[in-house]
């Protein structure tokens, strides 16, 4: 197979980073990205893009740690380069605070982020309702810049990108040799995955440039993440809700909760409300599959179900998916050489 044709369905952070990894591991592949939405209208664009992992109950911890470590290392190098501002990648330090001491004092990622340590008593005085806290520095991927930067890298690698709604993976079998499914929440309908469910998140993006540090409540519900131009205030975790419309009561609730962590946010300006549906699953599906229909086979690589942790593990899962694409290519080449005999 001289130039395998690979279609990546989905143009959020997972689709674009997976496509980019495929161009890196398989330079002879012809990669095309197909998606009904591109930045700034993807789920990824709503997210703050903080590298603080979400723990998947059914994915082995060592695998999650490996994904996070690869992602962190990759982005750390970009943050330290001249491209950092264009890519939207920057370091941010801050605190995770708990109303009561968590049973797990050291999360699995504490040695990957920078300078992780418990907060001092003096630091905790800023948070009178919280008893315990952790201070550390991590990375943030601002969207749209990061997605636009990925698109730019893809174009430079010769990747074509088309706006197209794919209703069925089989639509693609005549044009493409391998299909990579990075459709996030769309996978529920596209491949009938009933283990995938939305967790609705509403956030506020506000102008508050004096906020230089992140603050996150350990319960994961309330957070303040300063981006390049806007601060993301969150949030909600509404399991099973499909509504993409902002809720006014929720807006006020998020604002109040964030102001109680950081009173200066009362002076925030230009408040915009956004909603995204986290494509949630007990474990991220990074898996190969060969679909079969009437004697025709279609190799598919799945990379979806990242829920609340997409940015944190995106590069790691993209690399794994790219390896699976390589395996698909080997399998195709193997069977085509067998066919020649």
């Amino acid at each position: 197979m001289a130039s395998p044709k690979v279609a990546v369905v989905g143009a959020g952070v997972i689709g674009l980073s997976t496509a980019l990894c495929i161009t890196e591991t398989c330079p002879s592949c012809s990669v095309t990205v197909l998606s009904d939405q591109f930045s700034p209208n993807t789920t990824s664009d709503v997210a703050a893009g903080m590298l603080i992992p979400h723990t998947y109950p059914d994915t082995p911890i060592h695998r999650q740690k490996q994904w996070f470590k690869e992602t962190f290392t990759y982005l750390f190098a970009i943050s330290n380069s001249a491209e950092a501002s264009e890519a939207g990648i920057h370091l941010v330090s801050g605190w995770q605070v708990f109303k009561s001491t968590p049973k797990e004092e050291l999360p699995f990622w504490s040695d990957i982020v920078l300078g992780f340590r418990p907060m001092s008593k003096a630091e905790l005085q800023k948070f009178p309702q919280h008893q315990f806290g952790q201070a550390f520095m991590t990375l943030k991927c601002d969207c749209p810049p990061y997605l636009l930067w990925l698109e730019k890298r893809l174009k430079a690698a010769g990747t074509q990108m088309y706006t197209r709604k794919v209703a069925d993976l089989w639509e693609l079998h005549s044009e493409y040799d391998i299909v990579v499914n990075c459709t996030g929440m769309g996978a529920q309908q596209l491949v009938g995955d009933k283990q995938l469910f939305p967790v609705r998140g509403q956030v506020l993006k506000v102008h508050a440039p004096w906020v230089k540090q992140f603050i996150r409540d350990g319960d994961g519900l309330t957070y303040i993440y300063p981006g390049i131009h806007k601060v993301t205030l969150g949030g909600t975790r509404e399991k099973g809700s499909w509504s993409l419309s902002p809720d006014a009561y929720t807006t006020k609730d998020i604002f109040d909760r964030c102001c109680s962590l950081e009173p200066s946010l009362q002076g925030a300006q230009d408040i915009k409300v956004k909603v995204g549906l986290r494509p949630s699953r007990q474990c991220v599906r990074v898996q190969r599959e060969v679909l079969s229909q009437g004697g025709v086979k279609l190799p598919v690589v799945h990379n979806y179900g990242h829920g609340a942790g997409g940015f944190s593990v995106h590069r790691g899962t993209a690399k794994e998916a790219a390896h699976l694409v390589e395996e698909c290519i080997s399998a195709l080449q193997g069977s085509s050489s067998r066919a020649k005999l």
Partner: protein
Amino acid sequence: MRVAIIGAGVIGLSSALCIHEQFHSLEPSLELQVYADHFTPHTTSDGAAGLWQPYLSDHGNLQETLWNKETFDYLLGHLHSPAAKEMGLFLISGYNLFTEPVPDPSWKNIVLGFRNLTPKELELFPGYSYGWFNTALMLEGRSYLPWLTNRLTQRGVKFFHKKVESFQEVSGDGVDVVLNCSGMRSGDLQPDPELQPGRGQIIKVLAPWVKHFIITHNLKSGIYNSPYVIPGSEFTVLGGIYQHGNWSEENSAKDHKSIWDSCCQLLPALQKAKIVGEWCGLRPARPSVRLERESIRLGNLQAEVIHNYGHGGFGITIHWGCAMAAARLFGSILQEKKQLATPPGPRL
């Protein structure tokens, strides 16, 4: 009781506020007048980035360390107040970088979360092998000075745009106390060979992705002669110039290049930052802050002068501690005047 304050930088305005806050109810006739040739945004304080951080060593001057601490604690107490945004006050964390291990600074327990940098963090800064990370405060002069001015105006303090040439000029006409907060120009009022300019120059850029301050140190070239990057609320300050004895108030192209090249080497992403301004100013440098009383004979009058100048590159860092010390000196002057005014009791 009339008090003339010479100077409307951070020192003059905060000293005036501190004195008025403490004594206006005790001394109903208290009348404060601020005289200055420059007001915000044209003072030295307006050019400073506004980072609270003392020099590396206090040279055994524990008094100054205490004033620094008083200032930090005072500002920290205001952090959650509704006034914080208007004051230009917010928390900020960042790095101090060195090419060799150094002793911990006098202020390590004043700031929050002081720690050494990990090897992974030092990877970000090739050429630097040692460093600190801590959380401190920003107090932006171009917000703080107007805030102080508003508080003073509300209290009926009057402002006069005037270049004061002598203590005599302001001390006639019933003025009992003169507060000399004239910073770099104190030598014009009373010669002080210990007061020398520490010329600084900065470039203002838009680099909103920078969320931490980075102060590098070159122990041979001395404080602030090594690149620093300080992100503010509207723009980021790039600096690294300290020229002792240089009185020039013109921006230098050579200094611009030195700042730009060294800061871009420190943070490559700055190459893409847009330059929005440039400024230079004279830090009023002195081996130690002059904060003391002096009785000055002016003709047949005696005036009490409280000197409060010579804060070098740490004026914002130390201002409130000095303001309170100046207020204590004022209090003792007030006390003495009351004692003189009270007729002696009957001699038995």
